[in-house]
């Protein structure tokens, strides 16, 4: 039963993708209507601020940390055993 659902979803990844993009669009639309009590700082009053924060934060984090890892931090797994 569980497996059948998972298999079904796995075979219909295109549909999932469309659903996901629809969800993203909806969250931004919802932000137009969300009532803002006592905003803490300027970002709280910009529509879609957190969308940009989420996307840029995610991309930025991957670039910065993956970069750090490649340039400096990553070592062979037996680094300390040698």
């Amino acid at each position: 039963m569980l497996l059948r659902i998972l298999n079904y979803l796995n075979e219909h990844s295109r549909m999932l993708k469309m659903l996901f993009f629809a969800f993203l669009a909806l969250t931004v639309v919802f932000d137009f209507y969300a009532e803002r009590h006592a905003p803490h700082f300027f970002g709280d009053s910009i529509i879609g601020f957190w969308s940009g924060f989420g996307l840029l934060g995610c991309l930025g984090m991957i670039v910065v940390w993956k970069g750090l890892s490649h340039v400096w931090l990553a070592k062979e797994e037996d680094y300390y055993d040698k």
Partner: protein
Amino acid sequence: MISSTIFIHPATWFLMGAVLLPFLNKRAGLKKGVLIAVPVIAFTVIHWLPDSFGQVSYMGFDLVFGRVDQLTRVFLHVFTVMAIIGCIYGLHVKETGQHIAAFLYVAGSLGVTLCGDYLTLFIFWELMAFASTFLVWYRKKTRSIEAGFRYLLVHTTGGLVLLGGIFLRYKNIHDLSFVQIAANGATFADYLIMIGFMLNAAVPPIHAWLPDAYPEASVTGAVFMCAFTTKTAVYVLARGFPGFEALAILGAIMTVYGVGYAAIENDARRILAYHIVSQVGYMVCGVGIGTAMAVNGAISHAYAHIIYKALLFMGVGAVLEMTGKTKLNELGGLYKQMPLAMIFTVIGGISISGFPLTSGFISKSMIIAAAGESHRIGLLLMMTLAAVGTFLSVGIKLPYFIWFGKDSGVRAKDAPWNMNLAMGIAAFLCFFFGIYPEYLYKMLPFPVNYHPYTAYHLSETLQILGFTGLGFYLMVKKLKPEPKMNLDLDWFYRKGARVFMVFASRPVLSSDGWVNDVYRRIGFRLTMALAKAISWFDWEGIDWTIDGSARGVVEGGNRVRSLMTGKIQHYIGGAIALTFIILIIVMLV
């Protein structure tokens, strides 16, 4: 009078359980009964605690074993719930030693939570450190033996700093009671104590022991460890040091530091370990901000975090138990084989990410909102960025590369029933607190005037999570796990130790000669006699009446020990035994 109240203390039950367990080796049913009964009794007992009990005067010191207020109650609640879940998860484990270590560890944690003075705190604090080291060693791999020694050394160092602080504080004010310290009147002694606490909370730069040791612990050991050490540290920080600016800033740094490393790590349990650093960062930051709302948030987050982080460690532990693997580059496509473990892990993943209707949504946001209300925008943004990274690596990356991604060809089936039951309970709790936050909120020490389910908070959360998902979708190729390890600050003592060894082997060794001579004549004989006495007790005292399994453990230890010098397990075992004897004498006399 003390002896009649001793059974009120929940730690007593775990200590009695630990003493009883070696005698139940041949009775698997009874042993399982004890494993379930002890945490359940402890969970019941904590509801009937008086506000104060177990005051003992010992050599002029006033020791307080039981000081109970709302802050204590909420931590006792989650610790005993977690003990129940952990014991169910480890029910199938045959090595009694692992159960004993877990019981002692939980007892230490409960003891710290209940104590009202620094001396009692220190005893239970060290008990936690020693007992949890065995949870690492019981993995029985060379790597875990080494990691366990490093873990023990780091915690011993931290313990000494704490002890130094306690002594200095006593010298200054002649008072050992464990109460809140005002941020503006704190002395050097208080900061030493705080550093000792911060080490256990894995605050950078003294955090590296955590991602070093936890991934090398045994499957059930890691589940216990992820819950108790850091959260007991959060408790003592919340008790002693709310409003300390250093905590607010370091906590916010922690949140980002942890998720950054989690984004580049390959070992699933190491990813989770770095996320402990990150999540505990929220709590440390909340304690550091120090307002009623922030401290409430820190405590509710500690509660929620213990449950979902244990759930994550249980899910990944189930994969390790069934496949023997935790490295993401060796896993993939497991959804057909371990669907239950996948569902539970994903529930843990969405809880830690703070999805609406899960426990993370109602606890983490409280700290972030408290930062906003105190106009700490820098802290607010760092913590929100950490939330992005959390969803990226635990919410998506980890389940994706274990259960989906490319099929690794690893074949396995779902874990035993008891593991799934434990995961089921934890998963239920994740949703329960997400849907009924009031249940958690009314346990908190300050009245709560916070409503997580507002339209704007929902909108903010859904946008952040959704667009983080988009980021993953765009960068999934870049995130492909690689079989590498990443340097962290443990480099200093792992590589630095070699420099020390070179130094020690030359000048120190020669000047050390005469000390050695003295030691050989006197100290060595004493320690050998002690070791003999302990092993005699182990062999004759226990094995005679039961079977050879304790001897088996010693032999296992012997094989392990061939890697090391000396009989350090014996010394540590002896130290624990001695601590107990002293403790029992103190409590009964």
